[in-house]
Protein backbone atom coordinates (compact mmCIF):
# COMPACT_ATOMS: atom_id res chain seq x y z
CA UNK A 1 0.00 0.00 0.00
CA UNK A 2 1.23 3.38 -0.80
CA UNK A 3 0.37 5.32 2.19
CA UNK A 4 1.88 8.35 0.61
CA UNK A 5 -0.77 10.51 2.11
CA UNK A 6 1.06 13.71 2.71
CA UNK A 7 4.17 11.94 3.37
CA UNK A 8 6.47 14.56 2.16
CA UNK A 9 9.13 12.51 3.63
CA UNK A 10 12.50 13.73 2.57
CA UNK A 11 14.41 10.92 1.08
CA UNK A 12 17.96 12.07 0.75
CA UNK A 13 20.19 10.12 -1.56
CA UNK A 14 23.61 10.10 -0.02
CA UNK A 15 25.53 7.72 -2.20
CA UNK A 16 25.28 6.28 -5.66
CA UNK A 17 27.62 3.50 -6.70
CA UNK A 18 28.08 2.74 -10.35
CA UNK A 19 30.38 0.68 -12.47
CA UNK A 20 31.48 0.88 -16.03
CA UNK A 21 34.10 -0.54 -18.24
CA UNK A 22 36.71 1.03 -20.43
CA UNK A 23 37.10 -1.96 -22.66
CA UNK A 24 40.81 -1.64 -22.56
CA UNK A 25 43.59 -2.60 -20.28
CA UNK A 26 44.70 0.20 -18.03
CA UNK A 27 48.26 0.66 -16.88
CA UNK A 28 47.78 1.53 -13.24
CA UNK A 29 51.29 2.80 -12.86
CA UNK A 30 50.84 5.27 -15.66
CA UNK A 31 47.64 6.48 -14.13
CA UNK A 32 49.26 6.77 -10.74
CA UNK A 33 52.19 8.76 -12.06
CA UNK A 34 50.50 11.02 -14.52
CA UNK A 35 46.96 11.24 -13.31
CA UNK A 36 45.77 14.01 -11.11
CA UNK A 37 44.35 13.40 -7.68
CA UNK A 38 45.13 9.72 -7.64
CA UNK A 39 45.99 7.32 -4.88
CA UNK A 40 47.84 4.22 -5.87
CA UNK A 41 47.22 1.07 -3.91
CA UNK A 42 49.57 -1.49 -5.40
CA UNK A 43 48.91 -3.99 -2.62
CA UNK A 44 45.34 -4.22 -3.72
CA UNK A 45 46.01 -3.56 -7.35
CA UNK A 46 43.87 -0.52 -7.90
CA UNK A 47 44.07 3.20 -8.27
CA UNK A 48 41.68 5.59 -6.61
CA UNK A 49 40.95 8.70 -8.55
CA UNK A 50 38.97 11.45 -6.94
CA UNK A 51 37.03 14.10 -8.71
CA UNK A 52 35.99 17.36 -7.17
CA UNK A 53 33.21 18.57 -9.33
CA UNK A 54 30.87 15.77 -8.87
CA UNK A 55 32.52 14.71 -5.66
CA UNK A 56 33.24 11.15 -6.56
CA UNK A 57 35.87 8.57 -5.96
CA UNK A 58 36.60 5.92 -8.50
CA UNK A 59 38.38 2.63 -8.04
CA UNK A 60 40.20 1.75 -11.19
CA UNK A 61 41.42 -1.70 -11.94
CA UNK A 62 43.86 -2.68 -14.58
CA UNK A 63 41.25 -4.81 -16.28
CA UNK A 64 39.47 -1.63 -17.19
CA UNK A 65 36.64 -2.01 -14.73
CA UNK A 66 35.88 1.05 -12.75
CA UNK A 67 33.68 1.54 -9.73
CA UNK A 68 32.49 5.03 -9.18
CA UNK A 69 31.23 6.03 -5.75
CA UNK A 70 30.22 9.09 -3.83
CA UNK A 71 27.80 10.78 -6.15
CA UNK A 72 24.59 12.14 -4.75
CA UNK A 73 22.36 11.40 -7.70
CA UNK A 74 22.21 9.06 -10.61
CA UNK A 75 22.81 11.77 -13.12
CA UNK A 76 25.73 13.05 -11.19
CA UNK A 77 27.12 9.60 -11.02
CA UNK A 78 26.94 9.18 -14.74
CA UNK A 79 28.44 12.57 -15.33
CA UNK A 80 31.27 11.82 -12.99
CA UNK A 81 31.87 8.47 -14.57
CA UNK A 82 32.11 10.04 -17.98
CA UNK A 83 34.43 12.69 -16.75
CA UNK A 84 36.57 10.05 -15.24
CA UNK A 85 36.67 8.09 -18.44
CA UNK A 86 37.51 11.27 -20.24
CA UNK A 87 40.44 11.96 -18.00
CA UNK A 88 41.69 8.44 -18.51
CA UNK A 89 41.39 8.99 -22.18
CA UNK A 90 43.50 12.10 -21.88
CA UNK A 91 46.14 10.07 -20.19
CA UNK A 92 46.41 8.15 -23.40
CA UNK A 93 44.29 5.09 -22.96
CA UNK A 94 41.84 4.01 -25.61
CA UNK A 95 38.88 4.31 -23.39
CA UNK A 96 35.40 3.34 -24.44
CA UNK A 97 32.70 4.27 -22.05
CA UNK A 98 30.64 1.14 -21.90
CA UNK A 99 28.44 -0.90 -19.58
CA UNK A 100 27.62 1.92 -17.32
CA UNK A 101 25.38 0.60 -14.58
CA UNK A 102 24.25 2.01 -11.28
CA UNK A 103 24.83 -0.75 -8.82
CA UNK A 104 23.70 0.70 -5.54
CA UNK A 105 21.91 3.70 -4.22
CA UNK A 106 21.97 4.65 -0.56
CA UNK A 107 19.42 7.01 0.86
CA UNK A 108 18.42 8.17 4.29
CA UNK A 109 15.06 9.14 5.51
CA UNK A 110 13.59 10.16 8.80
CA UNK A 111 10.23 9.29 10.18
CA UNK A 112 8.46 11.94 12.14
CA UNK A 113 8.03 9.41 14.89
CA UNK A 114 10.04 6.90 16.82
CA UNK A 115 9.60 3.23 16.12
CA UNK A 116 9.23 0.31 18.42
CA UNK A 117 11.58 -2.10 16.79
CA UNK A 118 10.57 -5.25 18.61
CA UNK A 119 6.98 -4.86 17.68
CA UNK A 120 7.90 -3.98 14.16
CA UNK A 121 9.97 -7.09 13.86
CA UNK A 122 7.31 -9.26 15.40
CA UNK A 123 4.75 -7.97 12.97
CA UNK A 124 6.91 -8.56 9.97
CA UNK A 125 8.56 -11.73 11.10
CA UNK A 126 10.21 -13.26 8.10
CA UNK A 127 10.94 -10.11 6.26
CA UNK A 128 12.31 -8.09 9.12
CA UNK A 129 15.13 -9.14 11.38
CA UNK A 130 16.46 -7.52 14.49
CA UNK A 131 19.51 -8.48 16.51
CA UNK A 132 20.16 -5.69 18.95
CA UNK A 133 23.39 -7.29 20.06
CA UNK A 134 24.72 -7.19 16.57
CA UNK A 135 23.28 -4.03 15.18
CA UNK A 136 20.96 -1.48 16.73
CA UNK A 137 18.66 -1.34 13.71
CA UNK A 138 16.03 -3.68 12.41
CA UNK A 139 16.61 -4.85 8.86
CA UNK A 140 13.71 -5.09 6.47
CA UNK A 141 14.45 -6.67 3.13
CA UNK A 142 12.05 -6.18 0.28
CA UNK A 143 12.69 -9.03 -2.06
CA UNK A 144 10.90 -7.90 -5.14
CA UNK A 145 12.50 -4.50 -5.01
CA UNK A 146 15.80 -5.91 -3.98
CA UNK A 147 15.97 -3.15 -1.44
CA UNK A 148 17.01 -3.20 2.17
CA UNK A 149 15.66 -0.85 4.78
CA UNK A 150 17.31 -0.44 8.13
CA UNK A 151 15.08 1.01 10.76
CA UNK A 152 16.42 2.64 13.88
CA UNK A 153 14.44 3.14 17.01
CA UNK A 154 14.61 6.88 16.56
CA UNK A 155 12.65 6.58 13.37
CA UNK A 156 15.60 7.13 11.08
CA UNK A 157 15.86 4.94 8.03
CA UNK A 158 18.63 4.02 5.69
CA UNK A 159 17.57 2.47 2.45
CA UNK A 160 19.75 0.78 -0.10
CA UNK A 161 18.59 -0.37 -3.47
CA UNK A 162 19.62 -0.79 -7.05
CA UNK A 163 18.28 2.53 -8.13
CA UNK A 164 16.63 5.62 -6.82
CA UNK A 165 13.21 4.61 -7.88
CA UNK A 166 13.37 1.38 -5.99
CA UNK A 167 14.54 3.20 -2.95
CA UNK A 168 11.64 5.57 -3.05
CA UNK A 169 9.25 2.72 -3.48
CA UNK A 170 10.78 0.89 -0.58
CA UNK A 171 10.29 3.83 1.71
CA UNK A 172 6.72 4.08 0.69
CA UNK A 173 6.23 0.42 1.35
CA UNK A 174 7.75 0.50 4.73
CA UNK A 175 6.11 3.62 5.94
CA UNK A 176 2.76 2.17 6.90
CA UNK A 177 4.39 -0.72 8.66
CA UNK A 178 6.40 1.63 10.70
CA UNK A 179 3.47 3.83 11.28
CA UNK A 180 1.74 1.00 13.05
CA UNK A 181 4.59 0.56 15.40
CA UNK A 182 5.14 4.08 16.42
CA UNK A 183 6.64 4.31 19.80
CA UNK A 184 4.26 6.51 21.63
CA UNK A 185 1.35 4.65 20.13
CA UNK A 186 2.38 1.09 20.66
CA UNK A 187 3.73 1.39 24.07
Amino acid at each position, binding site marked *: MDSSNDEALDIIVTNVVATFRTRCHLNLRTIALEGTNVIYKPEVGKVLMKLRKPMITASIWSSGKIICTGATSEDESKLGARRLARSLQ*KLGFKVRFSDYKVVNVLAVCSMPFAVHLIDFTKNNRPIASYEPELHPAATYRIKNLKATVQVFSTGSLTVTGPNVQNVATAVEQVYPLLFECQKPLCN
Partner: protein
Amino acid sequence: MLSDKGPVAKLYLSIIDDVIDSMRELFLDEGLEDRVLDDLKQLWEAKMMQSKEMEDFRRNNINPCNFVLQLPVNYSQTDEELTASVMIPTGQNVHSFPAKNNPETLATFSLPAGLAYPVQIPAGVTLQTASGQLYKVNVPVVVTQAPAGHQPLTQPTQQVTEWREAPAPPLAVVPPSMIPSQEMEPRSVASVTATHLPPSQQGAPLQQTPALVSEGSQPQQSQPGDPEVTVENSEPSSQPANPSMASCSSSQLLDFHIDTEEALTQAQTLQATEMEEILKEVIKEESDDVVIASDITPPQTDNQSEAVVKLDLDYNYSELSEIVQLDGPADNSDIEKEEEVPLEENDFLGIINAEAIKALQEVDESSDGNSISSSSDSDGADELANVVEEDPLNSGDDVIEQDIPDLFDTDNVIVCQYDKIHRSKNRWKFHLKDGVMCYGGRDYVFSKAIGEAEW
Protein backbone atom coordinates in the same frame (compact mmCIF):
# COMPACT_ATOMS: atom_id res chain seq x y z
CA MET B 1 81.96 30.60 -1.66
CA LEU B 2 79.96 32.83 0.41
CA SER B 3 76.60 31.63 1.20
CA ASP B 4 73.87 33.90 2.14
CA LYS B 5 71.42 31.89 3.96
CA GLY B 6 72.64 30.28 7.00
CA PRO B 7 72.31 26.68 7.83
CA VAL B 8 70.80 25.40 4.66
CA ALA B 9 73.42 26.87 2.45
CA LYS B 10 76.13 25.63 4.72
CA LEU B 11 74.65 22.20 4.54
CA TYR B 12 74.55 22.31 0.80
CA LEU B 13 78.10 23.46 0.61
CA SER B 14 79.24 20.74 2.90
CA ILE B 15 77.40 18.24 0.77
CA ILE B 16 79.10 19.60 -2.29
CA ASP B 17 82.44 19.32 -0.58
CA ASP B 18 81.82 15.77 0.47
CA VAL B 19 80.75 14.71 -2.95
CA ILE B 20 83.64 16.38 -4.65
CA ASP B 21 86.11 14.90 -2.27
CA SER B 22 84.78 11.45 -2.67
CA MET B 23 84.88 11.84 -6.39
CA ARG B 24 88.44 12.94 -6.45
CA GLU B 25 89.90 9.51 -6.56
CA LEU B 26 87.53 8.34 -9.19
CA PHE B 27 88.35 11.29 -11.30
CA LEU B 28 92.00 10.66 -10.98
CA ASP B 29 91.55 7.04 -11.83
CA GLU B 30 89.75 8.03 -14.94
CA GLY B 31 92.66 10.14 -15.88
CA LEU B 32 90.89 13.43 -15.55
CA GLU B 33 92.72 16.36 -14.19
CA ASP B 34 92.12 17.57 -10.77
CA ARG B 35 91.36 20.88 -12.23
CA VAL B 36 88.34 19.49 -13.94
CA LEU B 37 86.96 18.47 -10.62
CA ASP B 38 87.67 21.84 -9.18
CA ASP B 39 85.98 23.52 -12.06
CA LEU B 40 83.02 21.31 -11.54
CA LYS B 41 82.91 22.26 -7.93
CA GLN B 42 83.09 25.93 -8.75
CA LEU B 43 80.35 25.59 -11.26
CA TRP B 44 78.18 23.66 -8.93
CA GLU B 45 78.61 26.08 -6.11
CA ALA B 46 78.00 28.99 -8.37
CA LYS B 47 74.80 27.52 -9.66
CA MET B 48 73.64 26.66 -6.24
CA MET B 49 74.34 30.07 -4.91
CA GLN B 50 72.62 31.59 -7.83
CA SER B 51 69.56 29.53 -7.41
CA LYS B 52 69.45 30.29 -3.77
CA GLU B 53 69.83 33.93 -4.51
CA MET B 54 67.15 33.86 -7.05
CA GLU B 55 64.88 32.19 -4.65
CA ASP B 56 65.65 34.71 -2.07
CA PHE B 57 64.97 37.43 -4.48
CA ARG B 58 61.72 35.91 -5.21
CA ARG B 59 60.97 35.78 -1.62
CA ASN B 60 61.49 39.38 -1.72
CA ASN B 61 62.49 40.68 1.58
CA ILE B 62 65.89 39.98 0.58
CA ASN B 63 67.45 40.57 3.83
CA PRO B 64 69.96 43.16 3.29
CA CYS B 65 73.24 41.64 3.30
CA ASN B 66 74.83 41.73 6.54
CA PHE B 67 78.00 42.70 5.00
CA VAL B 68 78.40 45.93 3.43
CA LEU B 69 81.38 46.36 1.37
CA GLN B 70 82.09 49.88 0.69
CA LEU B 71 84.52 51.21 -1.63
CA PRO B 72 85.26 54.75 -1.92
CA VAL B 73 83.05 56.88 -3.91
CA ASN B 74 82.86 56.42 -7.52
CA TYR B 75 85.85 55.30 -9.07
CA SER B 76 84.47 56.28 -12.31
CA GLN B 77 87.45 58.28 -13.08
CA THR B 78 89.79 55.84 -14.37
CA ASP B 79 92.51 58.26 -14.69
CA GLU B 80 92.82 59.01 -11.14
CA GLU B 81 94.46 56.69 -8.94
CA LEU B 82 93.39 56.58 -5.49
CA THR B 83 95.31 55.23 -2.76
CA ALA B 84 93.56 52.74 -0.79
CA SER B 85 92.26 54.02 2.36
CA VAL B 86 89.98 52.83 4.94
CA MET B 87 87.13 54.94 5.81
CA ILE B 88 86.15 55.00 9.31
CA PRO B 89 82.56 55.48 9.99
CA THR B 90 82.98 58.47 12.05
CA GLY B 91 81.58 60.96 9.80
CA GLN B 92 84.68 61.63 8.05
CA ASN B 93 84.31 63.05 4.77
CA VAL B 94 84.52 60.79 1.97
CA HIS B 95 86.79 63.12 0.34
CA SER B 96 89.33 62.61 2.87
CA PHE B 97 89.93 59.18 1.82
CA PRO B 98 91.76 58.61 -1.25
CA ALA B 99 90.38 55.81 -3.05
CA LYS B 100 91.34 53.79 -5.87
CA ASN B 101 88.84 53.09 -8.39
CA ASN B 102 88.56 49.59 -9.21
CA PRO B 103 87.73 49.16 -12.74
CA GLU B 104 84.37 47.91 -13.38
CA THR B 105 84.29 44.41 -12.50
CA LEU B 106 82.04 41.94 -11.14
CA ALA B 107 83.62 40.03 -8.46
CA THR B 108 82.37 37.42 -6.19
CA PHE B 109 84.07 37.15 -2.97
CA SER B 110 83.62 34.29 -0.76
CA LEU B 111 84.99 34.05 2.62
CA PRO B 112 85.43 30.71 4.11
CA ALA B 113 82.59 29.63 6.21
CA GLY B 114 82.99 29.61 9.86
CA LEU B 115 84.73 32.87 10.02
CA ALA B 116 84.03 34.88 13.00
CA TYR B 117 83.38 38.35 12.05
CA PRO B 118 84.85 40.76 11.88
CA VAL B 119 87.47 39.30 9.68
CA GLN B 120 90.63 40.94 8.82
CA ILE B 121 92.29 40.33 5.62
CA PRO B 122 95.79 41.57 5.69
CA ALA B 123 97.28 43.21 2.76
CA GLY B 124 98.93 41.07 0.24
CA VAL B 125 96.47 38.25 0.57
CA THR B 126 95.20 36.75 -2.58
CA LEU B 127 91.60 35.82 -2.58
CA GLN B 128 89.94 33.63 -5.05
CA THR B 129 86.53 34.42 -6.23
CA ALA B 130 83.87 31.91 -6.96
CA SER B 131 84.61 32.22 -10.59
CA GLY B 132 88.16 31.27 -9.97
CA GLN B 133 89.67 34.60 -10.47
CA LEU B 134 92.24 35.78 -8.12
CA TYR B 135 92.22 38.98 -6.31
CA LYS B 136 95.10 40.31 -4.51
CA VAL B 137 94.38 42.37 -1.51
CA ASN B 138 96.78 45.15 -1.33
CA VAL B 139 95.10 46.90 1.41
CA PRO B 140 94.19 45.34 4.63
CA VAL B 141 90.54 44.74 4.67
CA VAL B 142 88.26 44.12 7.49
CA VAL B 143 85.00 42.46 6.91
CA THR B 144 82.30 42.90 9.38
CA GLN B 145 78.89 41.62 9.66
CA ALA B 146 76.32 44.23 9.44
CA PRO B 147 73.31 43.89 11.59
CA ALA B 148 70.99 41.44 10.10
CA GLY B 149 67.61 42.27 8.97
CA HIS B 150 68.53 45.24 7.05
CA GLN B 151 65.83 46.33 4.85
CA PRO B 152 67.42 47.75 1.87
CA LEU B 153 64.20 48.68 0.32
CA THR B 154 63.11 52.14 0.09
CA GLN B 155 64.91 53.36 3.05
CA PRO B 156 68.40 53.95 2.15
CA THR B 157 68.88 56.63 4.65
CA GLN B 158 67.56 54.59 7.44
CA GLN B 159 69.67 51.80 6.46
CA VAL B 160 72.65 53.89 6.28
CA THR B 161 71.87 54.98 9.71
CA GLU B 162 71.60 51.47 10.77
CA TRP B 163 74.87 50.69 9.35
CA ARG B 164 76.31 53.51 11.08
CA GLU B 165 74.98 52.39 14.29
CA ALA B 166 75.89 48.88 13.76
CA PRO B 167 77.17 47.60 16.97
CA ALA B 168 79.99 45.66 15.62
CA PRO B 169 82.16 47.94 13.76
CA PRO B 170 81.05 47.18 10.37
CA LEU B 171 83.93 46.21 8.43
CA ALA B 172 84.13 46.77 4.90
CA VAL B 173 85.73 44.41 2.69
CA VAL B 174 86.58 46.01 -0.42
CA PRO B 175 86.85 43.64 -3.14
CA PRO B 176 90.41 42.92 -2.97
CA SER B 177 92.24 44.71 -5.50
CA MET B 178 92.45 42.81 -8.54
CA ILE B 179 95.46 41.43 -9.90
CA PRO B 180 96.61 42.67 -13.17
CA SER B 181 94.08 43.50 -15.69
CA GLN B 182 94.57 40.33 -17.50
CA GLU B 183 93.01 38.51 -14.76
CA MET B 184 90.48 41.09 -14.48
CA GLU B 185 89.12 40.46 -17.81
CA PRO B 186 88.27 36.95 -17.05
CA ARG B 187 86.82 38.22 -13.89
CA SER B 188 84.70 40.60 -15.64
CA VAL B 189 83.24 37.74 -17.41
CA ALA B 190 82.17 36.30 -14.21
CA SER B 191 79.33 38.30 -13.04
CA VAL B 192 79.08 38.86 -9.46
CA THR B 193 75.72 38.15 -8.24
CA ALA B 194 74.47 40.00 -5.37
CA THR B 195 73.10 37.81 -2.79
CA HIS B 196 70.71 40.43 -1.79
CA LEU B 197 69.31 43.00 -3.95
CA PRO B 198 68.61 46.21 -2.41
CA PRO B 199 65.97 48.26 -4.00
CA SER B 200 66.78 50.32 -6.87
CA GLN B 201 66.12 53.43 -4.99
CA GLN B 202 68.95 52.88 -2.78
CA GLY B 203 71.13 51.96 -5.58
CA ALA B 204 70.49 55.23 -7.18
CA PRO B 205 71.25 57.42 -4.27
CA LEU B 206 74.25 55.39 -3.72
CA GLN B 207 75.62 56.33 -6.98
CA GLN B 208 74.78 59.88 -6.71
CA THR B 209 76.64 60.18 -3.56
CA PRO B 210 79.83 59.01 -4.92
CA ALA B 211 79.13 61.09 -7.88
CA LEU B 212 78.88 64.11 -5.73
CA VAL B 213 81.87 63.14 -3.89
CA SER B 214 83.81 62.47 -6.91
CA GLU B 215 82.97 65.75 -8.27
CA GLY B 216 84.41 67.44 -5.39
CA SER B 217 87.40 65.37 -5.06
CA GLN B 218 89.13 62.54 -6.34
CA PRO B 219 87.46 59.30 -6.25
CA GLN B 220 88.04 57.72 -3.06
CA GLN B 221 88.23 54.30 -1.99
CA SER B 222 87.35 53.11 1.33
CA GLN B 223 89.98 51.35 3.10
CA PRO B 224 89.55 48.17 4.79
CA GLY B 225 88.71 48.33 8.31
CA ASP B 226 85.64 49.72 8.99
CA PRO B 227 82.38 49.50 8.31
CA GLU B 228 80.77 48.78 5.28
CA VAL B 229 82.03 48.68 1.88
CA THR B 230 79.41 49.75 -0.43
CA VAL B 231 79.67 49.00 -3.96
CA GLU B 232 78.81 51.78 -6.13
CA ASN B 233 77.11 51.35 -9.28
CA SER B 234 78.16 53.80 -11.75
CA GLU B 235 75.76 55.17 -14.13
CA PRO B 236 76.83 54.32 -17.49
CA SER B 237 76.53 57.84 -18.49
CA SER B 238 78.15 59.62 -15.72
CA GLN B 239 80.15 57.09 -14.03
CA PRO B 240 80.87 54.35 -16.29
CA ALA B 241 83.41 52.92 -14.10
CA ASN B 242 81.59 52.74 -10.94
CA PRO B 243 81.44 49.30 -9.84
CA SER B 244 78.62 48.50 -7.72
CA MET B 245 78.40 45.69 -5.48
CA ALA B 246 75.72 44.65 -3.34
CA SER B 247 76.52 42.22 -0.76
CA CYS B 248 74.30 40.72 1.62
CA SER B 249 74.66 37.69 3.57
CA SER B 250 73.14 36.50 6.60
CA SER B 251 75.62 33.88 7.07
CA GLN B 252 79.24 33.94 7.22
CA LEU B 253 79.76 33.57 3.58
CA LEU B 254 79.54 36.59 1.56
CA ASP B 255 79.02 37.17 -2.05
CA PHE B 256 79.94 40.39 -3.45
CA HIS B 257 78.59 41.53 -6.63
CA ILE B 258 79.91 44.40 -8.31
CA ASP B 259 77.87 45.80 -10.98
CA THR B 260 77.14 49.03 -12.48
CA GLU B 261 73.63 50.13 -12.37
CA GLU B 262 71.98 53.34 -12.78
CA ALA B 263 69.67 52.67 -10.02
CA LEU B 264 72.45 52.61 -7.64
CA THR B 265 73.39 56.12 -8.29
CA GLN B 266 70.68 57.52 -6.20
CA ALA B 267 71.34 55.19 -3.43
CA GLN B 268 74.86 56.11 -3.59
CA THR B 269 74.14 59.71 -3.31
CA LEU B 270 72.15 59.26 -0.24
CA GLN B 271 74.62 57.00 1.16
CA ALA B 272 77.54 59.04 0.24
CA THR B 273 76.57 61.67 2.64
CA GLU B 274 76.28 59.28 5.41
CA MET B 275 78.81 57.08 3.98
CA GLU B 276 81.55 59.04 5.32
CA GLU B 277 81.25 57.07 8.33
CA ILE B 278 80.64 53.95 6.57
CA LEU B 279 82.70 54.10 3.54
CA LYS B 280 85.43 51.68 3.39
CA GLU B 281 87.31 50.62 0.56
CA VAL B 282 89.91 48.26 -0.12
CA ILE B 283 92.03 49.62 -2.71
CA LYS B 284 94.91 48.20 -4.14
CA GLU B 285 97.51 50.50 -5.25
CA GLU B 286 97.74 48.85 -8.49
CA SER B 287 95.02 49.76 -10.76
CA ASP B 288 92.84 47.63 -12.82
CA ASP B 289 90.83 45.29 -10.84
CA VAL B 290 87.33 45.80 -10.26
CA VAL B 291 85.73 45.54 -13.54
CA ILE B 292 82.40 46.92 -13.43
CA ALA B 293 79.86 45.54 -15.68
CA SER B 294 77.63 48.19 -16.88
CA ASP B 295 75.34 45.73 -18.36
CA ILE B 296 73.31 43.12 -16.88
CA THR B 297 74.81 40.53 -19.05
CA PRO B 298 78.25 39.26 -18.41
CA PRO B 299 80.10 42.13 -17.12
CA GLN B 300 82.06 44.04 -19.52
CA THR B 301 85.51 44.67 -18.62
CA ASP B 302 86.12 48.26 -18.22
CA ASN B 303 89.13 48.13 -16.25
CA GLN B 304 89.83 51.17 -14.47
CA SER B 305 92.78 51.89 -12.52
CA GLU B 306 90.77 53.12 -9.72
CA ALA B 307 87.75 51.40 -8.73
CA VAL B 308 85.47 52.42 -6.11
CA VAL B 309 83.35 49.67 -5.13
CA LYS B 310 80.59 50.09 -2.80
CA LEU B 311 78.56 47.36 -1.58
CA ASP B 312 75.26 48.69 -0.92
CA LEU B 313 72.60 47.00 0.90
CA ASP B 314 70.25 49.13 -0.93
CA TYR B 315 71.03 47.44 -4.04
CA ASN B 316 68.72 47.65 -6.86
CA TYR B 317 66.65 44.63 -6.55
CA SER B 318 65.65 44.05 -10.04
CA GLU B 319 68.79 45.30 -11.50
CA LEU B 320 70.81 43.03 -9.43
CA SER B 321 68.77 40.14 -10.45
CA GLU B 322 69.40 41.09 -13.97
CA ILE B 323 73.04 41.33 -13.42
CA VAL B 324 73.48 38.18 -11.61
CA GLN B 325 72.90 35.30 -13.79
CA LEU B 326 76.01 33.45 -14.64
CA ASP B 327 74.00 30.65 -15.91
CA GLY B 328 70.95 28.83 -14.98
CA PRO B 329 67.39 29.82 -15.32
CA ALA B 330 66.90 32.98 -17.16
CA ASP B 331 64.34 34.42 -14.91
CA ASN B 332 65.44 37.33 -12.88
CA SER B 333 63.10 39.50 -11.07
CA ASP B 334 59.84 38.73 -9.53
CA ILE B 335 58.07 40.36 -12.32
CA GLU B 336 59.81 38.33 -14.80
CA LYS B 337 59.13 35.30 -12.85
CA GLU B 338 55.51 36.07 -12.66
CA GLU B 339 55.44 36.52 -16.29
CA GLU B 340 57.08 33.29 -16.74
CA VAL B 341 54.67 31.45 -14.59
CA PRO B 342 51.71 32.19 -16.74
CA LEU B 343 53.79 31.17 -19.64
CA GLU B 344 54.42 27.91 -18.07
CA GLU B 345 50.81 27.46 -17.38
CA ASN B 346 50.01 28.33 -20.88
CA ASP B 347 52.49 25.89 -22.13
CA PHE B 348 51.04 23.31 -19.90
CA LEU B 349 47.59 24.03 -21.18
CA GLY B 350 48.95 23.89 -24.64
CA ILE B 351 50.25 20.49 -23.91
CA ILE B 352 46.95 19.45 -22.51
CA ASN B 353 45.23 20.72 -25.56
CA ALA B 354 47.54 18.85 -27.82
CA GLU B 355 46.93 15.74 -25.88
CA ALA B 356 43.26 16.40 -25.88
CA ILE B 357 43.30 16.75 -29.58
CA LYS B 358 45.11 13.51 -29.96
CA ALA B 359 42.78 11.84 -27.56
CA LEU B 360 39.84 13.22 -29.39
CA GLN B 361 41.11 11.88 -32.61
CA GLU B 362 41.62 8.55 -31.05
CA VAL B 363 38.19 8.61 -29.58
CA ASP B 364 36.61 9.57 -32.76
CA GLU B 365 38.36 6.83 -34.55
CA SER B 366 37.71 4.32 -31.88
CA SER B 367 34.16 5.36 -31.34
CA ASP B 368 33.46 5.17 -34.98
CA GLY B 369 34.99 1.78 -35.15
CA ASN B 370 33.19 0.71 -32.07
CA SER B 371 29.84 1.90 -33.12
CA ILE B 372 30.18 0.17 -36.38
CA SER B 373 31.38 -3.04 -34.86
CA SER B 374 28.95 -2.93 -32.02
CA SER B 375 26.03 -2.20 -34.15
CA SER B 376 26.92 -4.98 -36.41
CA ASP B 377 27.45 -7.44 -33.62
CA SER B 378 24.85 -6.72 -31.05
CA ASP B 379 21.15 -6.87 -31.57
CA GLY B 380 18.46 -4.39 -30.92
CA ALA B 381 18.67 -3.16 -27.43
CA ASP B 382 22.25 -4.08 -26.99
CA GLU B 383 23.08 -2.26 -30.07
CA LEU B 384 21.36 0.80 -28.85
CA ALA B 385 22.95 0.57 -25.48
CA ASN B 386 26.40 0.20 -26.85
CA VAL B 387 26.03 2.94 -29.31
CA VAL B 388 24.64 5.30 -26.78
CA GLU B 389 27.31 4.53 -24.32
CA GLU B 390 30.21 4.72 -26.63
CA ASP B 391 29.48 7.65 -28.75
CA PRO B 392 29.19 10.33 -26.18
CA LEU B 393 32.67 10.11 -24.76
CA ASN B 394 33.80 13.22 -26.53
CA SER B 395 35.21 16.40 -25.20
CA GLY B 396 31.69 17.36 -24.37
CA ASP B 397 32.09 15.82 -21.00
CA ASP B 398 35.50 17.14 -20.25
CA VAL B 399 36.54 17.08 -16.70
CA ILE B 400 36.50 20.81 -16.77
CA GLU B 401 40.16 20.68 -17.51
CA GLN B 402 40.88 19.48 -14.07
CA ASP B 403 39.18 22.02 -11.97
CA ILE B 404 41.60 24.22 -10.22
CA PRO B 405 44.18 24.23 -12.94
CA ASP B 406 46.58 25.92 -10.64
CA LEU B 407 47.85 22.46 -10.83
CA PHE B 408 50.87 22.78 -8.67
CA ASP B 409 53.17 24.37 -11.07
CA THR B 410 54.19 26.14 -7.98
CA ASP B 411 57.73 26.03 -6.91
CA ASN B 412 56.87 24.81 -3.49
CA VAL B 413 58.16 21.32 -3.50
CA ILE B 414 59.07 18.82 -0.86
CA VAL B 415 61.41 15.97 -1.58
CA CYS B 416 61.55 13.54 1.26
CA GLN B 417 60.79 10.11 2.60
CA TYR B 418 57.59 9.25 4.35
CA ASP B 419 56.93 7.48 7.56
CA LYS B 420 53.22 7.44 7.29
CA ILE B 421 50.61 9.05 5.14
CA HIS B 422 47.06 8.80 6.28
CA ARG B 423 43.78 9.88 4.82
CA SER B 424 40.26 10.06 6.19
CA LYS B 425 37.74 11.14 3.66
CA ASN B 426 39.41 14.27 2.50
CA ARG B 427 41.65 14.93 5.44
CA TRP B 428 45.25 13.99 4.98
CA LYS B 429 47.94 13.59 7.56
CA PHE B 430 51.62 13.34 6.67
CA HIS B 431 54.47 12.05 8.70
CA LEU B 432 57.57 12.76 6.69
CA LYS B 433 61.26 12.43 7.30
CA ASP B 434 64.62 13.36 5.89
CA GLY B 435 63.70 15.86 3.33
CA VAL B 436 64.20 19.20 1.73
CA MET B 437 61.39 21.64 1.26
CA CYS B 438 61.53 24.50 -1.13
CA TYR B 439 58.90 26.90 0.02
CA GLY B 440 58.54 30.50 -0.93
CA GLY B 441 61.86 30.38 -2.59
CA ARG B 442 63.73 29.20 0.45
CA ASP B 443 65.07 25.81 1.14
CA TYR B 444 64.33 24.11 4.39
CA VAL B 445 65.99 20.89 5.35
CA PHE B 446 64.30 18.67 7.90
CA SER B 447 64.71 15.32 9.52
CA LYS B 448 61.09 15.11 10.48
CA ALA B 449 58.01 16.86 9.30
CA ILE B 450 54.36 16.50 10.19
CA GLY B 451 51.62 18.00 8.15
CA GLU B 452 47.91 18.11 7.66
CA ALA B 453 45.93 19.00 4.65
CA GLU B 454 42.46 19.01 3.29
CA TRP B 455 41.72 18.08 -0.22
